[in-house]
């Protein structure tokens, strides 16, 4: 594929599709809205790419099984078995069936809940390791974290209501204020990135610099 096609065709497509979606958001034009609707419909076709993930998994783990990669091949064999089992059961019984839902409810849901619950342990270890008053910045972080944790703990506000007031004050001033500032910045940054992408000035995600 020539460099011209490889480099410029994606940028032209990005510009045309992007301009249609931008104009659809701002303007009242039935023609533009119709084109935008078609683009949204065709976007669904991209979801066919979900199979890329499965193919990738099977290639990676299949390779490990065939090569008997030390310490890993049996895990890879198990992964392939589970992928196939879920796929067969889902296709045969249907994803709304009792059998498939039993597997989701008794395997996926507890596993997901367990991983989410493990966050508590990571938070404990992280808070213990990080919140040391090494300098002024961390000391301020430590002080505010302490007050907020105490305000969040049901026990302290029940005993001393002012804990809740302090926590709310920290939230209403510092936290909300800084979140709003970051949000404004993120919005502006996103707009700038969007305009750069639209006009082909941002090509880092395509893996090449302009002119290379």
């Amino acid at each position, binding site marked *: 594929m020539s460099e011209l096609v490889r480099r410029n065709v994606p940028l032209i497509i990005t510009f045309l599709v992007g301009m249609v979606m931008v104009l659809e958001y701002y303007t009242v034009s039935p023609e533009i809205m119709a084109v935008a609707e078609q683009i949204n419909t065709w976007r669904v076709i991209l979801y066919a790419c979900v199979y890329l993930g499965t193919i990738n998994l099977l290639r990676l783990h299949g390779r490990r099984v065939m090569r008997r990669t030390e310490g890993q091949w049996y895990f890879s064999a198990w992964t392939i078995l589970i992928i196939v089992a879920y796929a067969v059961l889902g296709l045969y019984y249907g*994803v*709304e069936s009792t059998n498939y*839902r039993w597997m*989701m*409810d008794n395997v*996926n*849901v*507890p*596993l*997901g*809940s367990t*991983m*989410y*619950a493990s966050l*508590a*342990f990571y*938070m*404990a*270890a992280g*808070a*213990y*390791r990080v*919140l*040391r*008053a*090494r300098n002024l910045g961390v000391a301020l972080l*430590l002080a505010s*974290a*302490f007050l907020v*944790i*105490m305000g*969040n*703990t*049901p*026990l302290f*506000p*029940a*005993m001393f*209501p002012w804990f*809740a007031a302090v926590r709310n004050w920290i*939230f*209403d001033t510092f*936290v*909300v204020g800084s*979140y*709003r500032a970051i949000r404004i910045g993120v919005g502006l940054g996103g707009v700038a990135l969007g305009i750069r992408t639209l006009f082909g000035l941002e090509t880092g995600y395509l893996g090449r610099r302009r002119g290379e």
Partner: protein
Amino acid sequence: MSSIFEKLQDIPRGLIFGLVIIAMAYPILNPIGLPITVGQTSKDAFNAVDETEDGSFVVFHVQYGAGGKPTLQPAAIAVSHHLFQKDVKVIYFVDNPVDLANTYEIFDKLDPAKYGKSYGEDYVVLSLTGPFLTQAAIVLGNLIETVPKDSEENNLVDLPMFEGYTETEDIGLVFQLTTSGDVSEGWVYQAVSRYNIRLVGGWLSMMTSSMIPYYQAGQILGFIDGSKGAADYEVLANHPGDAVMITDILSLTQLIYLALIVVGNIGYFGAKSLGEGKS
């Protein structure tokens, strides 16, 4: 002496995790019943539900999946208790199989028949797919035309609760329980900005700081702030359940966090004052 400060700075992770496990397990095995003070935001949420007009519809969006279930399922049960005590019709709406299972589990724990409520007459469960904003627009603005069947394959038009349903005007409240910030903000755009429908929210505690501006602006009438908010609602609805038990766990585990932070700093400053240790 110096080795004590070094050890305090470097408590093994196994010990930290063990303390957290004990803090979590003890209240489950031996409920303590530590005091709870109901927060203002939970009171506002309760009042907003309480003030919903009799005969109106309430859209209840259940979207917390497996990860948010321990935190928000108790809230969903408490709110459902409250709603079923009132003369309102509830449209439960989900967008994935896990939340569909969560919703039916609410009914298992709640027993709507106890309140004289029956499926199809007083409540229904809809299972939608697609982008969230589209789903919300459909449920609020164009339900009967766009969603022919409920999650049990009944035709919506055949269900007694939708007899005479006039879409948006009949919806008195939207109640959302979600772990997604984009969904919780999306409801503000769809329900409040677009259709001027009253909105109450429920989410994880870490999302509160981002959603507070909407509450301060009056767009969200009240909210359930994670496990503590769920416990508050259980107390207000007079149905203490898992969330109230969880507050004991919350109190103990957060005490452990505070103790660990204090110990770590004692170790740090102790070692520093002796001229050694980690920086």
